[in-house]
């Protein structure tokens, strides 16, 4: 009798255990689903956030580029209205420098420039070895460029100073022993450098000293020309 009771108890306990086990499993399964849901939600938030940040960043980059392009296009239009000639010269100079060597540019543009020594606007003969001037006379050097469409950057290579910004006429045309300065007057394709800052008075003597380059351009026999004011 007692055995039978034990067996029934045992079977009931066993059934309860099985029931409990199934319940436990179900709970774990739901917990797992909840966990997965939480993780998925968090991942989705991170992914959406990242995509949003990238989108915003792209928006600002594209906006910046758009503004830049419009500004550049407007700048080109403005330049074409205000300084097209300058841009044309720059364009031509860049290309011409590609087509010619520096020496070719020099020999081509050398002959475009003409130099003359003048007294009161009249050219001095190139055979002159002694110069006599009068009181109040004006001595000057005239630099003339042949009328040309070629850009300044190209053509200036052939001038006296070879387009060197640090060089100037005053280094090539010197009056020794007196104090003066060179007054520069530009008119179209001609520039005149006139001795100024002093009055030539009777009896004054000084020398005109020409650089080798200027002597060659003037085609003068001497680089030193004594001057007397009479």
């Amino acid at each position, binding site marked *: 009798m007692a055995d039978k009771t034990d067996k029934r108890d045992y079977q009931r306990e066993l059934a309860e255990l099985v029931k409990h086990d199934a319940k436990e499993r179900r709970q774990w399964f739901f*917990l797992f689903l*909840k*966990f997965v*849901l*939480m993780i998925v*939600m*968090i991942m*989705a*938030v991170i992914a*959406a*956030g990242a*995509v*949003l940040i990238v*989108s*915003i960043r*792209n*928006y600002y980059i*594209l*906006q910046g*580029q*758009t*503004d830049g*392009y*419009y500004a*550049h*296009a*407007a700048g*080109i*239009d403005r*330049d*074409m209205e205000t300084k*097209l000639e300058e*841009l*044309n010269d720059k*364009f*031509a100079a860049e*290309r011409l420098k*590609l*087509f010619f060597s520096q020496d070719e540019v020099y020999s081509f543009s050398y002959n475009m420039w003409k130099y003359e020594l003048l007294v009161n606007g009249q050219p001095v003969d190139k055979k002159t070895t002694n110069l006599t001037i009068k009181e109040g006379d004006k001595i000057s050097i005239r630099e003339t460029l042949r009328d*040309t*469409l*070629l*850009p300044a950057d190209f053509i200036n290579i052939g001038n006296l100073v070879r387009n060197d910004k640090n060089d100037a006429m005053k280094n090539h045309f010197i009056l020794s022993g007196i104090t003066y300065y060179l007054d520069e007057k530009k008119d179209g394709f001609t520039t005149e450098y006139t001795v100024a800052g002093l009055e030539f008075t009777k009896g004054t003597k000084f020398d005109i000293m020409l650089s080798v380059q200027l002597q060659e351009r003037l085609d003068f026999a001497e680089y030193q020309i004594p001057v007397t004011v009479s």
Partner: protein
Amino acid sequence: MLLKLRKFIENNKIYIPIVGSAGALLLALLLGLFIAQGRLTTVKAEHEKSLQAYNAAEERLLAANMAAFEKTLLGSFNEDQLIRIAKKNIRYGISINGKPLGKNESIVYSRRPTVAVLLSENYGKESLNLLPRNIIEMGSIMKKENADKLMKVTFNEYSKMENNEYDYYYGKTLSYLVSDIKAGDIVTVELSPELATLMEIEDNVIEIIYNKDVDDDNAEIEEGNANG
């Protein structure tokens, strides 16, 4: 560890606010993303328009610069000087039966009874960016009437030769097609020394031998590829 996690998840007071707020945040982010994508589409279209405006402005400037440059060139240099400038900006080449001739190559084998020699001048986009087309074309030499001056071709009397000129906008090609050649025949071409210099070819006399049994597959390339 697992139990701690279980406790945490089982505690709805913590779990629900976390998942709820994540959901709300996700909704907000998706809405933001939707708006951002809309704006991005608009800005992309505007970006494309601005790029077109930029390119159009650049092209206008280039056209104006080029027109002025052409005037400057024509007004400053004589014809000989302009031709010299133009030639500096043209690439000249030669190909035989579709194969570009090597710098030191003076014997070429042909597997066919025809020999096609193509002389070409090429002024690609790069040259057209440097010089106005009218000036570049002053350096053009590949013309049918120049055929004899540019290259002398010697072949047997039973063979025939035909010259043709092709203009393909970025250059011109002059062809010399010799046909009816018998096995063992030699076709000799002699480039003018000036042209050989322009093409940077050392030997200006090239012999083309028709030999049926040549193994070199490269010797037979379709003529259509000859422009390269």
